């Protein structure tokens, strides 16, 4: 009996290994090598890079017009961190598999310092003329243009039109309204992105900038961080948590949690990116569907508005076999009217070409973007931005949750910013 059993087992094992080996061989290898001549590869992730979506349409548009140098998308994972990891693996090995890279606005400094991308200084004038200033700022480091703007993003204030008549223009006003309406309806007040991650830094910077604070000077050579303002802002946030202005769950919320809370009617105000707008409108079951509006974010002084700039730029890989064509592509993607308009109309992806906003002012989201984007500030795309961001998260987050001292936290952030400049 055991003899039969072990023989059968060996046979199975043998068969399986044969299958495994045989099936492996043809498919094995380094994935798709950068084929010489012709086809370029655009390493990009996210929902709009999927088949049939807008970035694919852009790629097809280019390929039609440039049959000698078509381009195709190599789809990276959804999360920005993972996209960066996969690009880094390829670039550190100096591989030629990617020609064009979809680069987050905060990676410019890192990629350029590592020697991963080609300088675009010679086409700077062309791009700068027509693009949103904030986007161009996010594409420069050390005075040089390293990547080409592609799409953008800015923060909105979403509010309940059935509870609030006029959107607030100051943060203090917002808190008053949030507490009052919240108590009246027994829902949360203000929800943003307060979990301990990059999104929190974005939110905090919006408060800090709107109070007049700055991080670096014009050419990013000096730290002009104002610890007093920073402390004030953090204390305000901590008070807002205590007083009930911040909705429960603020400190564990990312974009999706915030959207879900607001969409199910459990918050008076929400700070989020434009993507939430269509999702709320299209959700038949949302009690908020017809009762919400969008407005620019408030400031502390009541003057103007400021939001953080998000989005993606395109870069030319320093190890590409086809740099000329790649360069043409990224410039085309940044400056071509048709392409930029396509981003907006097909997918509500905010373009970086300023003129598009004038044409689309019927759409409430585009109209508000047109208003807000010129004032949007990018986070400094310093090579050490990740380090700085992590330091900010680690110090400011406990501070507003009552587990750290706001003044000490500001000091730590100052030191982190200065440490980065020195290198």
């Amino acid at each position, binding site marked *: *009996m*055991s*003899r039969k*059993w*072990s023989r059968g087992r060996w046979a199975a*094992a043998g068969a*399986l*290994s044969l*299958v*495994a*080996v045989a*099936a*492996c061989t043809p*498919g*094995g*290898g*380094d*994935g*798709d090598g950068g084929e010489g001549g012709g086809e370029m590869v655009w390493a990009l*992730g*996210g*929902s*709009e890079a*999927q088949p049939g979506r807008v970035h694919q349409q852009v790629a097809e548009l280019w390929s039609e017009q440039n049959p000698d140098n078509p381009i195709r998308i*190599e*789809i*990276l*994972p*959804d*999360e920005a961190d*993972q996209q960066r990891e*996969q690009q880094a*693996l390829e670039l550190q*090995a100096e*591989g030629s598999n990617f020609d064009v890279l979809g680069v987050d606005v905060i990676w410019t400094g890192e990629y350029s310092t590592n020697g991963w991308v080609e300088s675009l200084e010679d086409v700077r004038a062309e791009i700068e003329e027509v693009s949103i200033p904030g986007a161009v700022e996010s594409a420069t480091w050390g005075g040089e243009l390293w990547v080409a703007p592609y799409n953008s993003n800015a923060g909105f204030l979403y509010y309940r039109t059935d509870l609030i008549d006029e959107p607030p223009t100051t943060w203090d006003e917002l808190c008053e309204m949030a507490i009052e309406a919240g108590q009246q309806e027994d829902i949360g007040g203000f929800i943003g992105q307060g979990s301990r991650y990059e999104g929190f830094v974005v939110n905090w910077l919006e408060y800090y900038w709107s109070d007049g604070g700055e991080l670096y000077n014009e050419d990013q050579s000096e730290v002009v961080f104002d610890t007093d303002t920073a402390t004030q802002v953090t204390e305000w946030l901590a008070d807002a948590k205590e007083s009930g202005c911040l909705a429960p769950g603020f400190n564990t919320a990312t*974009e*999706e949690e915030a*959207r*879900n809370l607001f*969409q*199910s009617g459990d918050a008076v105000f929400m700070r989020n*990116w434009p*993507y939430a707008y*269509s*999702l709320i409108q*299209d*959700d*038949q*079951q*949302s009690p908020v569907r017809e009762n919400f509006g969008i407005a620019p974010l408030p400031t502390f002084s009541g003057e103007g508005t400021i939001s953080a700039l998000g989005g993606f730029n395109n870069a030319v890989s320093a190890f590409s076999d086809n740099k000329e064509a790649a360069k043409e592509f990224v410039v085309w993607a940044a400056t071509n009217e048709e392409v930029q308009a396509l981003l907006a109309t097909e*997918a*509500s*992806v905010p373009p970086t070409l300023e003129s598009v906003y004038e044409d689309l002012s019927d759409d409430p989201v585009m109209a508000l973007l047109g208003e807000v984007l010129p004032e949007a500030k990018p986070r400094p795309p310093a090579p050490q931005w990740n380090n700085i961001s992590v330091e900010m998260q680690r110090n400011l987050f406990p501070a507003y949750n009552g587990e750290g001292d706001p003044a000490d936290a500001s000091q730590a952030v100052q030191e982190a910013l200065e440490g980065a400049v020195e290198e």
Partner: protein
Amino acid sequence: MSQPGTPPTQTAAAQRESREGPPKKKGSDQGVVEQRSAAQIWGKSALLLVILLWCLFPFFWLIMTSLKRGDRALNSPDLFQGPFGLQNYEAVFQQDFLLNLRNSLAVAGMTTILCVVIGSFAAYALARLPLKRKILLLSGVLAVSLFPPVALVPPLYELWRTLGLLNTWEGLYIPYTSFTLPLTIFILTTFFASIPKDLEEAARVDGASPFKAFYRVIFPLAAPGVFAAAIIIFVAAWNEFLLASTFAPRNAEVAQTVPVAIAAFTGAVEFQRPIGTITAACVVVTIPMIIVALLFQKRIVSGLTAGSVKG
């Protein structure tokens, strides 16, 4: 008549009592006295129900979420809020998921086979054959699996790239085997060592080489341990993410495995977390594994005792 496994019902109640505190009644255990009071039956059933709920409820949540559609339904705390539909499953299979399943099956399968085979030999040697410095060897074996894998990835990636092992099945199951061997060896050594020596002696006396003794006598008796190890290896290899996402990040048609594919799912728009498709994929993936577990669990518990020698 060495009968591994404990006799039923009576001991069940006893062991439940032993876990819950001193026995409530000092019954004598002579013979087969069936003391099943109503309280005992209710107690046991209640305990069983709690355990099943504890284990299965989150899985039930996964299934319910995967069957929902519409944005709010997916994210509402009410489990039974509709609308319902199979869209998420459709979406999952539109994304070459079958290929991912194939890849994962091949990689995890090969890992299990290799680990069990190579590990059995090593474990037998450690358990039975005279080897010097066994404890040192065991420590060395253990050490291999302890280094934080995330730090091992960059050098391995470069090596694999040079050897052309990226995006291949062997590029995955070779390191998987390597990193899972320690656990396998420990488990199997433990089980081989627990088999009474005289069984082997008997086989040797009958003229079998240590080798044959191993196959015909030891291996079958160690079956519970072997099957337990096999399940553990398979599940570990199946769910492994770090190496798979580095060595075979894309291209389902070649080697992309299931966890990596799931992590690459996107929502309908940016930032949106595709919880519907993720849970659907998870259900698709878990059900076959449960079936495998159902099949294997019998093997673990039914000790193979035919032909064994009196202890």
